[in-house]
């Protein structure tokens, strides 16, 4: 009787999930775009070396030309080169802070929802309190008492943004923990850790992935807001968010090269992450019926 299905079902090679990911064409496009952006930011400066340390007021505010493909900004930096340099920071901060926030938030929320009772109450009230203290204010204080460094920046952004995923995941966790497969783990003597990490968290993946992509976008933009408060990256370094927010003031001035390249880069990276997220979701989502 074993033969019945043996003929029909070949043993699965590893990388089944990978294939499922690759089957999502948009996800692959996203991955390629992301790779290109990383290349652009990391390898780009080698191909297109520009002085991103010294200002050059004599060459400021130039529209695109052969010498400066994307023109220069208001202190004379080459915008293309600046885009590359800003990309390094934006990508790094966006990714790391997004991952950090998602990790903390997911674990926190899953645990709270799973354990329930007063532990849940305490953990979620902490989240409430965290949400109630507006991030702007925290940033203001942090910026007043520290000197921003890149790791600190990532940490701070991660720490102000884990609250949302925590809430989201907790909501799902509360309903997932009543599923029989979670009961089965508990009844079988599985640790709480296993129930949370292996059963609850993976089943919130759809929400988590969506949120993670938002976190990346948020982190990139938050750096821009933080520069406004004086907690951004230390000049002459820059990031896409800061480039965009400084360019926005020029919207009526026709200096499109100071607005749109940075804006497009942000949109591109967030879109790429989103489609990658969808792909990841497909990869981990076994039930979804793919067309």
């Amino acid at each position: 009787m074993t033969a019945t299905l043996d003929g029909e079902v070949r043993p699965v090679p590893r990388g089944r999930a990978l294939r499922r990911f690759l089957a999502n064409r948009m996800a692959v496009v996203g991955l390629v775009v992301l790779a290109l952006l990383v290349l652009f930011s990391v390898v780009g400066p080698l191909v297109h070396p520009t002085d991103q340390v010294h200002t050059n007021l004599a060459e400021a505010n130039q529209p695109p030309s052969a010498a400066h493909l994307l023109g220069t900004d208001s202190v004379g930096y080459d915008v293309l080169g600046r885009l590359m340099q800003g990309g390094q920071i934006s990508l790094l901060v966006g990714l790391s802070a997004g991952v950090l926030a998602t990790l903390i938030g997911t674990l926190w929320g899953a645990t709270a929802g799973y354990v329930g009772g007063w532990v849940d109450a305490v953990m979620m009230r902490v989240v409430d309190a965290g949400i109630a203290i507006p991030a702007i204010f925290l940033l203001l204080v942090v910026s007043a008492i520290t000197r921003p460094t890149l790791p600190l920046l990532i940490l701070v952004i991660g720490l102000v943004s884990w609250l949302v995923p925590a809430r989201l995941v907790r909501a799902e966790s509360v309903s997932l923990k009543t599923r029989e497969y979670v009961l089965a783990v508990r009844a079988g003597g599985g640790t709480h850790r296993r129930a949370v990490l292996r059963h609850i968290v993976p089943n919130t993946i759809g929400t988590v992935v969506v949120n993670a992509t938002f976190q990346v976008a948020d982190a990139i933009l938050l750096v821009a807001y933080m520069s406004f408060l004086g907690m951004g990256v230390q000049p002459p370094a820059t990031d896409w968010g800061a480039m965009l927010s400084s360019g926005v003031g020029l919207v009526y001035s026709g200096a499109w090269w100071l607005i749109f390249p940075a804006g497009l880069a942000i949109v591109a990276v967030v879109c790429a992450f989103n489609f990658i997220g969808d792909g990841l979701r497909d990869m981990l989502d076994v039930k979804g019926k793919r067309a």
Partner: protein
Amino acid sequence: MTTVSATADESTAALEVDDLHVTFTTDEGDVPAVRGVRLAVARGRVLALVGESGSGKSVTAMSVLGLLPRNARTSGRVSVGGTDVVGLTGEDLRRVRGARVGMVFQEPATALNPSMTVGAQVAEALRNHGTAKDVAAARAVELLTEVGIPDAAARAGRYPHEFSGGQRQRVVIAIAIACEPEVIIADEPTTALDVTVQAEILDLLRRLVQERGAALFLITHNMGVVADIADDVAVMYQGRVVEQGPVQQVLTAPSDDYTARLLAAVPELPRLADEPAAADEVAPADGDALRLEGVCVDYGRGRRAFRAVTDVDLVVGAREIVGVVGESGSGKSTLARAAVGLVPIAAGSASVLGSALTGHGRRARLLRARIGIVFQDPAGSLDPRMTVGESVAEPFRMHPDAAGRPNRAERRTRVTALLDAVRLPGGTLDRYPHELSGGQRQRVALARALALRPGLLIADEPTSALDVSVQQQVLDVLREVHTEFGFGCLFISHDLAVVHEIADRVAVMRGGVIVEHGSADRVLGAPREPYSRALVAAAPSLDPVEQRRRRELRLTAL
């Protein structure tokens, strides 16, 4: 049995399936689930489809209403009352669904919307086809009463998770028959039901067929049910119909080899004795695997509180198999859950393998490692995001010490061996639960429960979705493992024959209390309590003569 002409004109077939092929595209390639099935049911007749678990019965049924998942490719012809439904889409298809063809799904646990009251879900079936809102609501309560939900008016406002497995199944049946469709497709409609309710449901379905001239397409693995209700039988094996014909002929003189094997595997209850036998208390031998004393379980709190189990004493010996039978909703599953601490015990005490099962500490976990559990609903108890292999291997990873710290390869070997033991092919290892048939999932759950050679096995309907031949094999495995390692087992089933076959002792539950218990032979052969007698009498027999006797007995007993 049936007064309607047994030789209805072929052309008036209410449901006709012709050369149906269904192939699933999966990551590992194509799975041909149905290969050229040809079937027909006329109005007023009952066609029973039996066959091996995973042979394509459910897939065939679902293709009628175009409900297969998107990775299925279908070809062939399916017509309902002359209309070809395979090509239908949109509004045309919708008008057939529910109104002309009613469908009862195999797994009732997941078939109901968890966030909608049961009454609303029944009423929706009516409203979809033009019934006014309040009329539909009133009719929904009637339907729920009809399928035997007690206190239907009040319970219509409850949510599915507040119902027992059997009750949910009845809700699904109520939905299917709501619009009095011309064709009723019932996929294992009575698996989760105890025999008394099963009999009532069969009566209900029979009435629908007889009085309203509906055609019933019944998928079941219960040969007793087939004998009881079917006019014609089709036998499926590996995606093909291997034999088809009138019930008498197929059951008594099977022409196909597989059919013969299938029939041979049907367990039979002993003839019901006319007089109850004297009580016999067999004391369990060496120590006990499970001891329940005065256990009470409540659901809800305050005014909504509901006592599901009342003052139950039950002992399962260390090497003993104790069967629990009884009415659907009588608290069997609740008792099992209470035994392993999944629901809190309101009063009384429970001890497992000699110690109380409390907390989540290391000691409790080690104790739990020695408990195997098969939940009633296999679909719900498997993590949808884990492959079968991962699910079955999970106990090894949860209790590496108890499992002897197997590495990856060892785990895989052992999982393969376990799957083999429950007669699942090795290829199942890398599939996800939703890619399996109901019976296959159930066996996965059993394999997982046996993974660590438990000292106590709680098996809640472990074979309800299996065809008798596989069931036979699985029971054999269970017995083998039992004799080899000797564990105590709480075996919950509504299939009295199966219980009789495997259990040493049997407890009969009703309304949350154990009404009778004693040796399997005595309780199932010569029960003392009227309820037990009615229960045993309700169990269908393969033998049409015996079956008639039982039905009469049951009617007098009630």
